[in-house]
């Protein structure tokens, strides 16, 4: 009897504690605790709307510059470049504060800040798919053409075009983003597959069947929330998903063929939808680490995802050109990208532009882009600099089975371009929320789904 009474008391105190705890939890929302959850579940969780800052101080009389980025490690790169700049330019010292926001939040904040003319940072990273939004009307971005000029001859020209309007350059590219196939050789070895022998999609399918038969893994991923797989194949077919004059162009035989390829892989049981909708999410990393997929199609910038989020796979991942339908087709395409801009409202426009173009386009900068970010830099002079590209101490060289630059130099004349224009934000949004989901989750007819997408986006833009 007595026991049950004290039990009741305990229960009561537990309950009241619980109530108090949930009350407190309600108040201090988002500040702590939530981060661990989000890192486990979703990359661009909006629970941390605060943003995290990193400041690099310059010497006396330094100018304050602020910058927003949406990938934390980009901030580390810029911090390093400010340190180098300050060491070289004692008369132009910079204090840089880089703030990392989640992807959607950062672009939305920038839109509002530029629209209202207040609150924008001096410098900002803008993802290529969002860039056309910022070129609408009279761009509220600084014209960087003059500042880019000294570097122009040594960089891949198509990457500049992505961030330009009416012949003026508004954004500085970060990388080429050559798309390749990342193979998990541990799984392939178990299945007795030699990835260097995979030249066509037929070879890939055959290899996939072996993988599924002999291991627990799937050969490849199906993305419902990402475009990279489909755009890579579309580029092989020499097509694009928008027209020259910025109209959607998805109800084409090429697009149908590209999507049908992945549909046939899914039907054959060698590919499966990846958690999170595409391979560049925390959920996706989790499945790749767990060995669910033997190959992933991603641009070379995905290397940093391997080293940062999937250290367990070190020494097991090989890089290879994409398979093609028939030999002779171009085996790569530049995908993704980040254009860094200087805003028109910046009080130190000149210094910001000078530093930015130096940091991202000079050979010094490009060496750091490779070292820190693991990107394929736009300055091609650097690609053949063996000392840098084959540095045995480099973490990317260490991580992968073969050297990324060997692959890059092999395909350097086969890297095609998928355009980014005003149709892209709406089109990508519709494809990634509706079209791919209806095709791969609900089994909708590919041609019809693409026709719907075409009509909806035409209407929205019209």
């Amino acid at each position, binding site marked *: 009897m007595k026991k049950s009474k004290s039990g009741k008391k305990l229960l009561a105190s537990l309950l009241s504690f619980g109530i108090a705890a949930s009350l407190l939890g309600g108040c201090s929302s988002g500040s702590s605790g939530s981060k661990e959850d989000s890192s486990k579940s979703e990359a661009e969780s*909006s629970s941390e709307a605060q943003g995290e800052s990193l400041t690099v101080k310059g010497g006396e009389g330094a100018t304050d510059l602020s910058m927003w980025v949406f990938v934390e490690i980009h901030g580390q790169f810029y911090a390093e470049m400010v340190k180098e700049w300050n060491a070289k330019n004692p008369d132009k010292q910079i204090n840089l504060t880089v703030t990392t926001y989640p992807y959607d939040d950062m672009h939305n904040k920038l839109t509002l800040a530029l629209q209202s003319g207040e609150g924008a940072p001096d410098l900002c990273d803008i993802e290529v798919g969002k860039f056309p939004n910022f070129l609408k009307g009279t761009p509220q971005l600084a014209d960087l053409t003059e500042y880019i000029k000294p570097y122009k001859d040594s960089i891949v020209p198509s990457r500049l075009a992505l961030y330009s309007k009416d012949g003026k350059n508004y954004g500085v590219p970060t990388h080429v983003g050559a798309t390749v196939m990342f193979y998990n050789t541990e799984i392939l070895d178990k299945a007795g597959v030699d990835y260097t022998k995979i030249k066509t999609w037929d070879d890939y399918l055959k290899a996939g069947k072996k993988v599924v038969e002999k291991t627990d893994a799937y050969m490849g991923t199906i993305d419902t929330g990402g475009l990279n797989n489909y755009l890579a194949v579309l580029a092989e077919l020499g097509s694009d998903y928008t027209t020259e004059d910025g109209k959607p162009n998805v109800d084409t035989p090429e697009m149908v063929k590209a999507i049908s390829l992945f549909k046939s892989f899914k039907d054959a049981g060698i590919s499966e939808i990846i958690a999170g909708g595409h391979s560049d999410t925390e959920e996706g990393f989790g499945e790749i680490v767990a060995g669910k997929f033997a190959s992933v199609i991603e641009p070379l910038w995905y290397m940093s995802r391997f080293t940062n989020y999937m250290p367990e796979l070190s020494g097991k991942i090989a890089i290879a050109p994409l398979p093609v339908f028939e030999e002779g087709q171009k085996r790569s395409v530049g995908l993704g990208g980040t254009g860094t801009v200087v805003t028109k409202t910046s009080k130190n426009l000149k210094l910001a532009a000078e530093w930015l173009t130096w940091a991202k386009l000079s050979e010094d900068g490009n060496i750091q882009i490779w070292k820190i970010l693991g990107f394929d830099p736009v300055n091609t002079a650097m690609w053949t600099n063996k000392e840098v590209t084959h540095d045995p101490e480099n973490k990317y060289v260490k991580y992968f089975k073969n050297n990324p630059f060997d692959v890059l130099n092999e395909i350097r004349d086969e890297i095609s371009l998928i355009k980014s224009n005003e149709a892209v934000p709406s089109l990508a949004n519709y494809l990634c929320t509706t079209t791919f989901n209806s095709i791969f989750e609900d089994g909708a007819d590919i041609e019809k789904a693409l026709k719907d997408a075409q009509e909806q986006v035409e209407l929205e833009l019209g």
Partner: protein
Amino acid sequence: MTKFFKKFIYNQKVAPYIFIFPFVLIFCIFFIYPMIYTVVMSFQKILPGENEFIGFSNYSKLFRDSVFFKAVANSFVYMVLTLVLLIPFPMLFACMINSRTMAAKEFFKSVFFLPALTSVVVAGTIFRLAFSESDSSLMNQFIQMLGFTPIKWLKMRETGFAVLLLLACWRWTGVNMLYFLSGLKNIPEELYESADIDGANSWAKFTKITVPMLKPTIIYVMTISVYAGLAMFTESYMLWGGNNSPQNIGITIVGYLYRQGIEKNNMGYASAVGIVLLVLAMVLNLTQLKINGLFKKED
């Protein structure tokens, strides 16, 4: 001068206007002006540095936009279902808690009310994780224990909407219950006593006394629920971890406004969406208030 000022300040006709002036000022700056400007913008193509009048083309585009209709349908269904779930049940719970035979009243009151104190952001995130599609998510573990296969909760329209409604009920039942509780406190005991003398049973007392006497509260709760249902955004945004739910199963009118205006930098089109929302909410609420007789002169 001071005389004039004194006369002015002590003037009984002027004083009321002075007192309400701060409110009117704030109302005009933050409500009337943006509203008028939204109407203007809905006839414009808004680009940074270049605004251009384009007549009704935002609207004509809107009425051919399938995603917009999906958003309207979603908001509408959500609004109706929240009315169905969030008026009768909280009323019932309020009656139960108000009843003399009920034990631990305060405990239930606080338990029902607690969710309303958590932020939607936290609640939405937790619901998203609990209903995540992976095999190890809370709800999937639960249904696997019952022998079902894991479900991609947030990828299908029906289950996605069910989760959204669950979140709404979890959060708002307590709040609506408190409205009804305060309404119940205003019903005089004598009415029930005389009903007892006449031999009325509990059901008769509930339908003949409680519900009619609660009518003002019901109207109030209904009015705010109609608006809140149509304007819902944060719940959907947090549940799908962003504004882009698969096949737009979670898009709402405000979500679409946000997507067009902020994510796609298309303010003119977004303004047209906002005006349609305003018209919808006004028409619904005015009709509802008219039917319920709120505009009749009090006797």
